[in-house]
């Protein structure tokens, strides 16, 4: 897998056949109860959130879900959350904190949804609140970047204690297409952009941005190994005194 070029990795991360966030949620947890709405305005289908049992213990999951076909993609706006989506995630994270549930965030987004209405509803503010709260949550918080991890829209769900990436995933300050058009005024230079952005899991692990690469799972695969791994990670983090947990999380980002 590591012999793929950066741009091949971009394409692999965007494959519609990849295992979906919904399947990961349903097979990693049992008895998943989905919760809708931000209690302010709307329910954003780009984010699936709720409570499930991980090896018998309750966790809160928030995950960004792309559509499987055109209709679903339009409804979920291609996995780009609106402010309402981020506020739903924030509401569920606060609820998780209240009930001492660890948080698992699954990220697969090209970025926050860029439209006029999202601007009117405070996209910047919504992302900012998630980051601010994320840094202070008094429960273990783990993120897996499943496919695309695009800029602030990804970071909004990725400032936890651990950040992992699937083999076929990417994480960058903006898309290679956006980078190409800003740096060279030429959107066609995506391959060079992908290289320069150092957006592969290997490059990001070497740079200390992420903590581990998780091997790629296909739809229908048995997820018990991943489930046990997350169970272990959450158990370890949950043993830390709360102040230490938050302090270590802050230190993780303080070093950047």
């Amino acid at each position, binding site marked *: 897998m590591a012999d793929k070029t950066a741009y091949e990795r971009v394409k692999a991360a965007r494959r519609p056949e990849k295992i979906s966030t919904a399947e990961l949620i349903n097979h990693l947890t049992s008895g998943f109860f989905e919760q809708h709405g931000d209690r302010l305005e709307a329910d954003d289908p780009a984010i699936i959130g709720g409570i499930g049992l991980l090896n018998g213990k309750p966790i809160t999951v928030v995950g960004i879900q792309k559509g499987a076909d055109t209709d679903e993609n339009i409804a979920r706006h291609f996995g780009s959350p609106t402010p309402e989506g981020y506020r739903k995630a924030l509401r569920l994270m606060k609820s998780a904190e209240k009930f001492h549930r660890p948080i698992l965030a699954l990220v697969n987004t090209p970025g926050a949804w*860029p439209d*006029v209405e999202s*601007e009117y509803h405070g996209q*910047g503010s919504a*992302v900012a609140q998630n980051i601010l709260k994320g840094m202070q949550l008094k429960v273990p918080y783990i993120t897996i970047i499943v496919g695309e991890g695009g800029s*602030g829209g990804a970071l909004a769900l990725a400032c936890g204690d651990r950040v992992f990436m699937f083999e076929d995933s990417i*994480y960058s300050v903006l898309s290679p297409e956006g980078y190409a058009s800003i740096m060279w005024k030429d959107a066609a230079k995506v391959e060079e952009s992908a290289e*320069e952005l150092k957006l592969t899991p290997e490059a990001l692990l070497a740079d200390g*941005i992420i903590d581990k690469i998780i091997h790629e799972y296909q739809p229908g695969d048995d997820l018990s190994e991943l489930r046990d791994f997350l169970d272990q990670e959450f158990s370890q983090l949950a043993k830390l005194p709360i102040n230490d947990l938050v302090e270590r999380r*802050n230190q993780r980002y303080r070093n950047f």
Partner: protein
Amino acid sequence: MLRSRFKMPSHEELVKRMDAIPDHILRECPICDATFFSLRAGSTKTCPNCGYGFRITAKRRAKITFDSFEEIDKQMTIPDRFTDEKYLTKAKKAKKVTGINESVLTGIGTLDKQRVGVGIMDPFFVMGSLGSATGEKITRLFEEATRKKLPVIMFTASGGARMQEGIHSLMQMAKVSGAVAEHSRAGLFYVVVLCDPTTGGVTASFAMDGDVILAEPHALVGFAGRRVIEQTIMQKPPKDFQSAETVMAHGFIDAIVPRLQMKATLSRLISLHTKENVYGR
């Protein structure tokens, strides 16, 4: 009369004379299109017609806003690991233009004898983008303010993330937010002044974290840029969709304050949040 001694110049002649005046003496306001002599904008660089505050360097802003200002982390600049020549050349030019070594000027200032932590982003330093050292300086400012129990005033002006520093730029959003949270937990006051332009990753982090959020008139404030919206989802945004006035109407700004009243307003807000004489104490 006098008139007889002077021949009135024709319109064409007048236009020619206007052309002969160097650009920097006549200015056109990008907001109201009024044309006026630079001098009339005064030391605060404000449009005499509509009150728009022209983009100014961080150093000038420090001078027109605070009674005194003592810079901290003055030497901090782009880390050695970034070696791209084009980028470093750009940064070198930016240092010359702005007189600072990164896109934010930080320090301790005084406003009517009240001490405050101050951060001022400079839109002329690589578009005020969020570099690693920018994030580090702002983080240290909040840490210092937390230690000294000082409020923080942050003037934002930024094109967002610094592309040349890639993912490290993105990580600054989390790093600064950690320090903002710590400052807030200590019960200290944080006021943001959104200046033209505040966009992208800066809007999506510390620019929207203030206890009070002010803006300068007509400042552009948003997350996604107009071009990104047009090219990604083929939607054509209305003209003023990201003006401070629009953002305020949607509930994200406490007040819009003209530059000439900024100092007095900030001083008043600091005083309101640091009174010793409070209920229940």
